[in-house]
């Protein structure tokens, strides 16, 4: 039985003109009761508009044609706002009140329920979602993941039959995001709730989805089961940008040009490899004593390389930044956040620090950027102790810092004003500033954004603008705090290219991230940060092959055969090599 | 439903009998402090009745949120600039909000800023007067919105006026309460000792109004049309 049917839906925003400006055109699909539908597509493809049109209270203003039926009734005639739930992208914005219990009760208050009824339903919901422990807390004290869970719970408390989620995990770290997705799966499985979820991180979501709708330019490109999506996408366009967003198993499967239903999970992907390529492992074992040999080889390679590196470093002598036995805490009575952190970054290399939430990774960056001061140990940037920099000299042609929330870098009404400000600081004449800014934007391919308000650009564009802005001062070392949060696969690729370019220019890049895939693909060295310390430093293939849990999905799929293959591309390459031999 | 009726009856009873009785008995009981008592009661009743009026009129969700966020901003401003005594953007934000969203919104923003920021700075007998003071500054700004939008001179004049009005309101009650009549020498002493603060206060009003009116006004204007408030 279908719960939602969308017929010939087209939509145009008030400022759009002509055929091409339809945000949505000719959308047709239906969702049956209890179905879990995933909506995906590159950013700007109309996912958000579609979801908001289905939730009529959030519908944007504009010209709409076509019809939407909820339970067979036209959407306009439905009365109860609680029937269709909506959770938005930003966990901060969804929260209305200052206390968790009040937030949960808010929707029920609007429905006009009595105090006793509210008490019961709030209690029951809080128990289901496991948020009893934060029930009396202030909403502000919650972590991002808890906030998004609260948003979900305070929608679910109203008892919706259909739940719409617009990229709910895009601002969460991978661990909180996985938790959130598993809660959605639990809801779908245990309560039979119908869900439409728009997502750009498909690794966890796709295996449990019943159907995937892939949108492009306001149209539905593909609407099919998750196992078939890889093949269908390849039929449409084998180099489609969405291919990069698919789960690793699908990417490896498609990379080998296999036909038919693809594996989705790590387990299925591994079985697929073992069934078809286990010979590779055996032949390796036969020749050189199995995986131990692999590792040994890699280690040898690594030690060779470090020796080489050391040599080359001594040759260049370019140490970009260094921390030696650094200790830090936020207050006298508070526990230590950094407990003897030591590491160094060289010019021309990308160094990734990985680690869980709240272990002090960002604090380490702040100390290095001179925002917080260590109480023991030494921090030096470009060969000079950080305390010796006076005024803003540390930040001029020296060190640049891209914070996690890139919007914090923009304070003016338009992007170009913000860029001009940096030039003014560098002493550029007023008449030249705009031209310089325009030229810079043109080089980065961002000219169309210059006159926009900083808050009117997408997450990926915002990040590129921010990078543009911090790079004006020609830094020798660039610090990145969680650069991949909120980025779709396409923007991640862009970021990787930018980092590559910076490296070849001799800039040292230090990134703090949760994203193992990203680190595996762009770092020269990786390190694990835990309990206020840096635990291991190694190049990515060695680093991830030594880890059992903290590693990439591609590595989990392939580790039984090739332990040091950490990216999808690498796995596909080895598979092809094996086939060729 | 029954509870609703009981509540309504209680409110009626309070307004028609309890409050007048309370004010009268206080007037009789407090001897020389009766004028202070009357002023305090009148202020509290004025502010309360404004809130009741707000309950009945203001309806758009977006407008409520504009008031809430402007209030939050002015409180944050008070916290952020706390190291410099007297330097606070509360009045400026109230005035700007009033200019673009009307006198009632201005009153609410001012009054609520006082109530909430006192949660951080300490409540006291001064709270109702602060609420009234900032509220009324916002209210007048709403009435004078057209002129305030146009002339810089008028804006500066209003910055001065609001600074003086605010300290006037805050001190009059103290003097009346202490002496039972308007003791000019005590009032002069109080104003004089507060003069540096008042001066900083007027300056901060002027600074924030001059820098803030245009850009913030543009934002408010944009929001107003974009979300049809």
């Amino acid at each position, binding site marked *: 039985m279908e719960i939602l049917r969308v017929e010939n839906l087209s939509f145009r925003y008030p400022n759009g003109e002509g055929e091409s400006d339809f945000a949505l055109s000719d959308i047709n699909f239906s969702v049956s009761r209890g179905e879990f539908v995933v909506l995906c597509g590159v950013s700007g493809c109309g996912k958000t508009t579609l979801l908001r049109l289905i939730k009529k209270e959030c519908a944007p203003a504009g010209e709409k044609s076509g019809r939407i039926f909820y339970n067979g009734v036209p959407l306009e005639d439905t009365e109860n706002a609680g029937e269709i739930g909506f959770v938005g992208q930003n966990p901060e914005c969804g929260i209305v009140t*200052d206390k968790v219990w*009040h937030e949960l009760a808010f929707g029920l208050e*609007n429905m006009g329920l009595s105090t006793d009824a509210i008490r019961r339903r709030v209690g029951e919901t809080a128990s289901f979602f496991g948020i009893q422990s934060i029930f009396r807390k202030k909403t502000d004290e919650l972590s991002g993941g808890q906030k998004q869970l609260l948003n979900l719970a305070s929608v679910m408390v109203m008892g919706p039959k259909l739940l719409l989620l617009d990229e709910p995990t895009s601002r969460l770290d991978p661990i909180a995001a996985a938790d959130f997705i598993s809660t959605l799966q639990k809801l779908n499985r245990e309560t039979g709730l119908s869900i439409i979820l728009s997502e750009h991180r498909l690794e966890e979501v796709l295996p449990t989805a019943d159907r995937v709708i892939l949108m492009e330019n306001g149209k539905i490109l593909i609407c099919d089961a998750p196992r078939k999506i890889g093949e269908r996408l390849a039929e449409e366009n084998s180099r489609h940008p969405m291919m990069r967003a698919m789960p690793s198993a699908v990417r490896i499967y498609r990379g080998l040009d296999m036909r038919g239903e693809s594996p989705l999970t790590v387990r299925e992907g591994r079985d697929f490899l073992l069934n078809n390529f286990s010979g590779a492992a055996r032949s390796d074992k036969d020749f050189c004593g199995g995986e131990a040999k692999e590792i040994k080889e890699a280690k040898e390679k690594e030690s060779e390389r470090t020796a080489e590196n050391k040599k080359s470093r001594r040759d260049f002598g370019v140490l970009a930044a260094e921390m030696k036995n650094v200790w830090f805490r936020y207050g006298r009575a508070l526990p230590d956040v950094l407990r003897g952190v030591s590491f160094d970054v060289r010019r021309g290399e990308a160094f990734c620090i990985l680690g869980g939430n709240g272990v002090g990774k960002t604090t380490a960056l702040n100390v290095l950027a001179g*925002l917080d001061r260590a109480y023991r140990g030494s921090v030096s940037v470009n060969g000079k102790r950080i305390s010796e920099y006076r005024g803003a000299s540390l930040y001029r042609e020296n060190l640049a810092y891209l914070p996690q929330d890139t919007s914090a870098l923009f304070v003016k009404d338009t992007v170009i004003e913000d860029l001009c400000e940096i030039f003014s600081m560098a002493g550029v004449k007023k008449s030249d500033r705009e031209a310089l800014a325009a030229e810079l934007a043109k080089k980065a391919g961002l000219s169309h954004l210059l006159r926009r308000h900083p808050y009117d650009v997408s997450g990926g564009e915002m990040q590129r603008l921010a990078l543009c802005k911090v790079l004006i001062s020609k830094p020798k070392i660039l610090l990145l705090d969680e650069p991949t949060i909120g980025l779709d696969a396409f923007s991640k690729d862009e970021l990787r290219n930018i980092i590559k370019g910076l490296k070849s220019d001799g800039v040292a890049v230090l990134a703090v991230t949760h994203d193992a895939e990203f680190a595996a693909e762009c770092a020269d060295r990786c390190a694990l940060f835990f309990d206020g310390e840096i635990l291991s430093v190694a190049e990515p293939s060695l680093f991830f092959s030594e880890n059992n849990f903290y590693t990439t999905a591609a590595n989990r799929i392939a580790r039984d055969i090739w332990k040091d293959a950490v990216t999808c591309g690498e796995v596909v390459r080895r598979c092809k090599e094996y086939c060729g031999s | 439903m029954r509870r609703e009726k009981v509540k309504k009856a209680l409110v009626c009873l309070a307004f028609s009998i309890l409050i007048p009785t309370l004010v009268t008995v206080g007037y009789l*009981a407090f001897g020389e*402090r009766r004028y202070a008592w009357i002023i305090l009661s009148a202020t509290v009743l004025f502010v309360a009745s404004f809130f009741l009026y707000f309950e009945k009129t203001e309806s758009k969700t977006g407008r409520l949120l504009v008031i*809430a966020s402007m209030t*939050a*901003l002015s409180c944050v401003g008070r916290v952020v600039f706390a190291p410099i005594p007297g330097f606070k953007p509360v009045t400026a934000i109230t005035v700007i909000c009033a200019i673009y969203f009307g006198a009632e919104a201005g009153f609410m923003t001012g009054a609520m800023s006082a109530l909430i920021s006192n949660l951080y700075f300490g409540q006291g007998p001064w709270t109702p007067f602060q609420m009234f003071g900032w509220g009324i500054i916002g209210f007048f700004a709403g009435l004078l919105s057209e002129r305030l939008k146009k002339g810089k001179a008028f804006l500066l004049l209003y910055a001065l006026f609001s600074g003086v009005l605010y300290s006037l309101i805050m001190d009059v009650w103290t003097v009346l309460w202490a002496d039972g009549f308007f*003791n000019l020498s005590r009032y002069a002493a109080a104003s004089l000792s507060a003069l540096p603060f008042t001066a900083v206060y007027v300056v901060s009003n002027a600074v924030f109004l001059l820098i803030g009116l245009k850009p913030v006004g543009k934002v408010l204007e944009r929001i107003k049309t974009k979300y049809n408030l």
Partner: protein
Amino acid sequence: MKAFKNFHPVSLAVYFLSVLTVLMFTKNPVLQAEALVGAALFLGALQGVGTLLSDAPFYLALFAMTALTNPLFSHNGVTPLFFMNGNPVTLEALLYGVSLAATVIGALILCRCFCDVMTSDKILYLAMAASPKFSLVLSMALRFIPMLVKRFHRVERAQRTMGLYSGKSVSDRVKFHVRVFLSMIPWTLENAMETSASMRARGYGKYIKRAEKIKNGKNVKNVKCEKKKRTNFSLFKFTPRDAALIFVCLLSFGISLLGEAFFSVGFEYYPRLGALRLTAWSAAVYAVFGAVTFMPFLIEVKEALVWKYCVSKI
């Protein structure tokens, strides 16, 4: 030490208002002394004796200043002690200054207790009784404030790493902060608009829309039976204990006021000091008001003893 905090917000508000009003407006030294000592003990119980002692110098200075400067402003009274600039400094004015100082300090201490006890959620609850919409706006503002403070520091740091703040002078610092502060306003408003979408998504404002429909005369009957008013939920429960507290507070407030007005509880400093007369009524007033002012302290002490007893049993 949380026993007194657990009363219902309405009872607590009645308590503070009744004691504070009597303290602020009476000139009777007995009542003032009771209120001052009661408030000090209350604060001690809430925040520990340490706070009380560390704040003592401030209160003493304030006390001295208020008491000693009053004769300079007020020349009433019939017992001149000496003359200054041709004006008499009178005994009555000096004593009145002492009484003023006691009241001011008592009120300050009581207000600190108020801030400690009446947390924001209790104030919200009280505001709800007057105007639910006002209370909701308050709650939203309270939710925004910590978010904005965090945002402020984030922007401030981000701007600093771009070298926009050299930190040379105070005016530089102020300019920098003003700039960051102003930049937050559009951000806040944009976020608020998204929040308003979230409110509407959860059915806020539906009721108002229906009311509009009635005005337009569409489908009147049908709409009316569907119409449901927004309710207000809170975690507070009103118990007999709360009713008892309200009753005692109102009783003490009533007899104090009536006593001041009609039954010789009033006290005058000018033109000459009055006399404290002990009548049945005034004795009752002193007893009941005293009980009310010391009650929070006694409740806290009792609670502490109960805990100690329980712990020793375990």
